[in-house]
């Protein structure tokens, strides 16, 4: 008899406990049309629904509804749409809220009526029209005045569900019941039943969380709806801060539409693509040897400004433009030597001239050979005179070898230049810049087909491979790329990060680089827009495609909506 009673008590207790333990089992092999959503407790009743065009969140606001309407694919607010909400057989057209994009408000008397409301929302935007449905659950507690419909056990369950303290109380009632049953089993039947009832009551309270889910989402199996294992027993209800973005216990993010608008979160739909295999290199910008010039003096002398003065750094100069002149520096000894030479040559010149004249008069009587010798001598002396005379006065013009921008000016007016090694001006043609990179793997150097580069400030450059050196420099192979259409503001010597495409392709999902952020553990992740107000972190394996995009090789499924803009801000939600 005693054993029977114990068995009876245990049976009742176990059967009551079953709904708590079974939900995960009950879910197997069954998938509803729309993705199951974990329960997120919101301070105000909220309805989320979406179709292939739109994503809609309706929030109870006072005596009406606020409707947030976004594009499903991009999460952009939809402006200028006509939104008509039908509930309880009554159709109301929402009016756009001024000053906010994609927010529509309407008055709805029925929001004060507790219970589930079936909503049909008709959306007509410029380019698409749609019908959306959803269930807005108005809880009894949200409207204390004039409700009072739900009391007794269900209200108690609701309270237990929200309060961990009560939950532990229920556990204690259960333990008390067990003790009572054990202690009183021998005393009589009525008390055993009382003990069993206590056990059952404790379990009922504990499972209240599971029962209390009933109306959250349409389903055949009530609490079995939640996909997250164990979510039925421990709802993801977060009491406290109401409509602020927050991290849920499972690591996903609850981001209300208002916050999504603030962070301007945008998404894209993942599509599998083929992309070239890539390698990353470090390089720097250099001037094209044909597009960069040095100006040097061929002799020592004193700098004098050209017609337009000395060029400034940053000044644009034309090919052949005189940048400065050099007055040759001749010291006193040299100068007197040259003057002596000039005097000697002039003296010889006078003698030679008179000799030629005399011989010409005697033409026919003197040998022709003598006349020609004298004339040759005279010509030679004249050339010597011509060569000697300008040495003391002629200035050397320093001309720009190419058109471009002056990048260095190492001289000042009046400065004396010594020797030939000194570079006076540097000129770079900004339309003919190059990138020099080093590759440590010869196979990589030979396999590179095309490349892109990004500067530190994020400017993208498209590169064209010119060639690679055959000689190693510090155990690395220098590679040279030409920048196609270089943007303004590049500087010689600026470091750049290169993504070079090598032979072979990889299949994956192409995303912008800023989609991929780091988790707290340093793992690369992307944020997936799972349901209108929920984002889930997906760890990914990536490979760069070019400076601005990455290829996700693993971690996300095609057709998933991945956050592109605002991923970094979402990542900071705690």
């Amino acid at each position, binding site marked *: 008899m005693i054993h*029977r009673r114990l068995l009876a008590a245990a049976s009742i207790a176990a*059967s009551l406990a*079953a709904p708590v333990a079974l939900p995960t*089992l009950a879910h197997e092999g069954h998938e509803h049309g729309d993705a199951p959503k974990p329960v997120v407790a919101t301070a105000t009743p909220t309805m989320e629904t979406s*179709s292939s065009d739109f994503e809609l969140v309706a929030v109870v606001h006072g005596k009406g509804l606020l409707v947030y309407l976004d594009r499903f694919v991009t999460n952009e607010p939809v402006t200028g749409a006509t939104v008509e909400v039908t509930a309880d057989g009554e159709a109301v057209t929402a009016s756009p809220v001024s000053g906010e994009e994609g927010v529509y408000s309407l008055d709805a008397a029925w929001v004060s009526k507790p219970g*589930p409301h079936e909503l049909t929302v008709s959306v007509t935007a410029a380019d698409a029209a749609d019908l959306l449905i959803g269930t807005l659950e108005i809880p009894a507690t949200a409207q204390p005045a004039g409700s009072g419909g739900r009391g007794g056990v269900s209200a108690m369950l609701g309270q237990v569900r929200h309060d961990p303290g009560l939950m532990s109380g229920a556990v204690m009632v259960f333990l008390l019941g067990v003790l009572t049953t054990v202690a009183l089993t021998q005393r009589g039947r009525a008390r055993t039943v009382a003990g069993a009832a206590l056990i059952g009551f404790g379990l009922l309270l504990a499972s209240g969380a599971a029962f209390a889910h009933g109306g959250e989402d349409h389903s*055949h199996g009530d*609490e*079995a709806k939640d996909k997250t294992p164990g979510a039925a027993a421990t709802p993801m209800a977060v009491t406290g801060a109401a409509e602020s973005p927050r991290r849920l216990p499972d690591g996903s993010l609850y981001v209300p539409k208002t916050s999504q608008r603030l962070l301007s979160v945008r998404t894209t739909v993942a599509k599998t693509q083929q992309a070239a295999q890539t390698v990353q290199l470090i390089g720097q910008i250099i001037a094209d040897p044909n597009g960069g010039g040095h100006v040097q003096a061929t002799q020592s002398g004193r700098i004098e400004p050209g017609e337009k003065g000395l060029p400034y750094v940053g000044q644009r100069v034309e090919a052949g433009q005189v940048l400065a002149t050099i007055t040759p520096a001749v010291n006193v000894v040299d100068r007197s030597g040259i003057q002596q030479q000039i005097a000697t040559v002039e003296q010889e010149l006078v003698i030679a001239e008179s000799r030629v004249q005399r011989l010409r008069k005697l033409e026919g009587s003197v040998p022709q050979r003598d006349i020609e010798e004298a004339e040759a001598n005279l010509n030679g002396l004249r050339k010597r005179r011509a060569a000697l005379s300008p040495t003391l006065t002629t200035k050397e013009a320093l001309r720009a070898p190419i058109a471009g921008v002056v990048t260095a000016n190492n001289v000042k007016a009046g400065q004396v230049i010594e020797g030939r090694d000194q570079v006076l001006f540097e000129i770079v043609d900004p339309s003919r810049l190059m990138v020099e990179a080093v590759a440590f793997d010869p196979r990589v150097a030979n396999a590179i087909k095309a490349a892109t580069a990004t500067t530190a400030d994020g400017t993208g450059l498209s590169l064209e491979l010119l060639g690679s050196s055959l000689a190693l420099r510090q155990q690395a192979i220098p590679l040279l790329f030409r920048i196609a259409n270089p943007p303004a503001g590049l500087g010689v010597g600026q470091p750049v990060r290169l993504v070079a495409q090598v032979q072979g392709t990889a299949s994956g999902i192409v995303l912008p680089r800023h989609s991929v952020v780091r988790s707290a553990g340093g793992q690369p992740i992307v944020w997936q827009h799972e349901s209108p107000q929920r984002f889930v972190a997906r760890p990914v394996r990536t490979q760069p495609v070019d400076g601005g995009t990455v290829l996700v090789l693993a971690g996300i499924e095609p057709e998933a909506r991945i956050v592109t803009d605002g991923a970094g801000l979402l990542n900071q939600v705690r």
Partner: protein
Amino acid sequence: MKFSTLLVAVTLFAAPATAFAHGPSVGPHGGPVTDAGTYHTELVLQGNDVVLYVTDGSDKPVDVAGAKAEATILANKQTQKVALEPAGANALKGKANLGESHDSVKVVTALTMPGQKPVQARFEMGHAGH
């Protein structure tokens, strides 16, 4: 006592198992199938005829005598409401004005089974009128 207790226990254990039942997304009449409350509903558009077939969770036809339904149809950016009347067995029928050519038609049905609350279902028809 023991038997009755066991019966209660078995019943309670079995309750969550109802969630197992389910069917394909295209119904026997060639239309899309969607859940509507505890029912499965299949919608077929033939010309201007709108037919809603109702089955239970295990795709067994359900008698719809006494039931009523309303279809909200969005075609060519125009919405129209069509009342669907029981038309024998598990079908509810109504007449809509769908016009000629349209890319996609979206339909929301509100089905009220006798003595129950209305349940909604949403259908997206690729191309109607075939």
